[in-house]
């Protein structure tokens, strides 16, 4: 297989990943890794493909496999680029998230904090990876149900306003507010964030659709089940059409719809 074929494969995989077609992207990244099988662990192309595949596995909910890819990429990048390199810090932040998704919050928090500390020590104030590392720490705080999660999420929205993470920060704020029972503010933030997400990612991207799911859960929590069901149903339709009936996003939205239909139980 030639270098050109590898490059084409990566471009197609990136494109599929950016459109939220994670199964297709995963196959392409797996093929790219086969091509790179003989490369040294410090090879940056290998590390980047491992990193991107981990993002796809994350989207597919295969967090343990994603963690394995990120650990390999992190080892390679630490050796080749150093701990303070943007690529290394970015990998560390994503590793923290993959570990957190598996419920290992103490480990996740330590890694996310280390990424944020390194980002501040090594990267400029407007470096996107520095913002991404802070975002990972906030994600851990919100997802692990921290006592001050809503305050942390609010501070994150303010701090990352002019970064590419502004939309993700709002998503997290919606979750934090909903989980602390602040439904009115959660709804307002979700409705503000939705058009931004649609413009940024497109209306049928998993992140946009999951934000719709969050809005539905917020309305449900606020005691407006009819509106909640309508929003959830609409998001589920779009997800089934665009991503398929077995895509993780579709499965999650179906669960949201079923939970809302079941009654006033607490749904996260």
């Amino acid at each position: 297989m030639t270098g050109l074929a590898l490059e084409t494969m990566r471009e197609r995989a990136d494109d599929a990943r950016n459109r939220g077609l994670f199964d297709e992207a995963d196959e392409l990244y797996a093929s790219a890794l086969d091509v790179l099988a003989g490369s040294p662990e410090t090879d940056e192309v290998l590390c980047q493909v491992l990193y991107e595949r981990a993002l796809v596995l994350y989207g597919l909910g295969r967090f343990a496999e994603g963690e394995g890819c990120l650990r390999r990429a992190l080892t390679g990048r630490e050796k080749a680029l150093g701990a303070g390199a943007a690529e290394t810090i970015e990998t560390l932040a994503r590793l923290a998230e993959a570990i957190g998704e598996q419920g290992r919050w103490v480990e996740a928090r330590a890694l996310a904090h280390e990424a944020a500390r390194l980002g501040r020590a090594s990267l400029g104030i407007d470096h996107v990876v520095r913002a991404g590392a802070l975002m990972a720490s906030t994600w851990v705080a919100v997802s692990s149900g921290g006592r001050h999660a809503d305050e942390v999420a609010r501070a994150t929205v303010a701090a990352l306003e002019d970064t590419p993470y502004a939309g993700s920060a709002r998503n997290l704020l919606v979750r934090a507010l909903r989980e602390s029972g602040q439904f009115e503010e959660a709804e307002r933030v979700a409705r503000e964030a939705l058009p931004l997400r649609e413009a940024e990612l497109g209306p049928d991207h998993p992140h946009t659709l999951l934000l719709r799911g969050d809005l539905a859960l917020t309305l449900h929590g606020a005691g407006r089940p009819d509106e909640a069901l309508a929003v959830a149903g609409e998001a589920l339709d779009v997800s089934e059409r665009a991503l398929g009936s077995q895509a993780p996003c579709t499965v999650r939205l179906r669960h949201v719809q079923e939970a809302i239909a079941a009654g006033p139980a607490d749904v996260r």
Partner: protein
Amino acid sequence: MTTTRSVDGFLALLDLSDGYRVAGQWPEAFEAAQAALDALPSDGSLTAEEHDELLLLGWLKRENASAGWYGSLRDGGEGRTDLVDPGRGAVAAKPADPDPLRRFRLGAVAVATMCCVTVSTSLVMLVIVLGAPAGQRVTLAGWGAGLLGCFVAAQILSLWWWKRLARASGTESPVVRACTEGDGR
């Protein structure tokens, strides 16, 4: 800004930082957020989880103030982006150098002067050696070469020292120094 370490003090300083931020007083907002971080108890009175969460909250407030400070300096500096990373301070804010080639020219003049002095000294020594009686020329040439070597070494050393002093004379704000030399919080 000094304070005793307590969660209440920490939160009060973060509120203060927010107040400064809303008023657009970025350096003050930054310093208040930094003071809040300094006030965060680390004596084990908080659980590790809560400590980390509050630490993150302080980091975010400080980051927000840094970004605002950076933006205001950048805007004031007519779009320059190399001014400062407030709180990290890799580059101290300073007015634009009106003559960016000035340092280069000074360096070139110093090196040229060194070369001229060295060549002149060598010529003087050559004249002395050639003018000496034949039996003493070898000894004189040895002494001359030794002296010339010491002279050149002294010049190189003084150039290096001058460069080091010039670099050390740059100013740095106490906030910048505290953050770059502190405990990384």
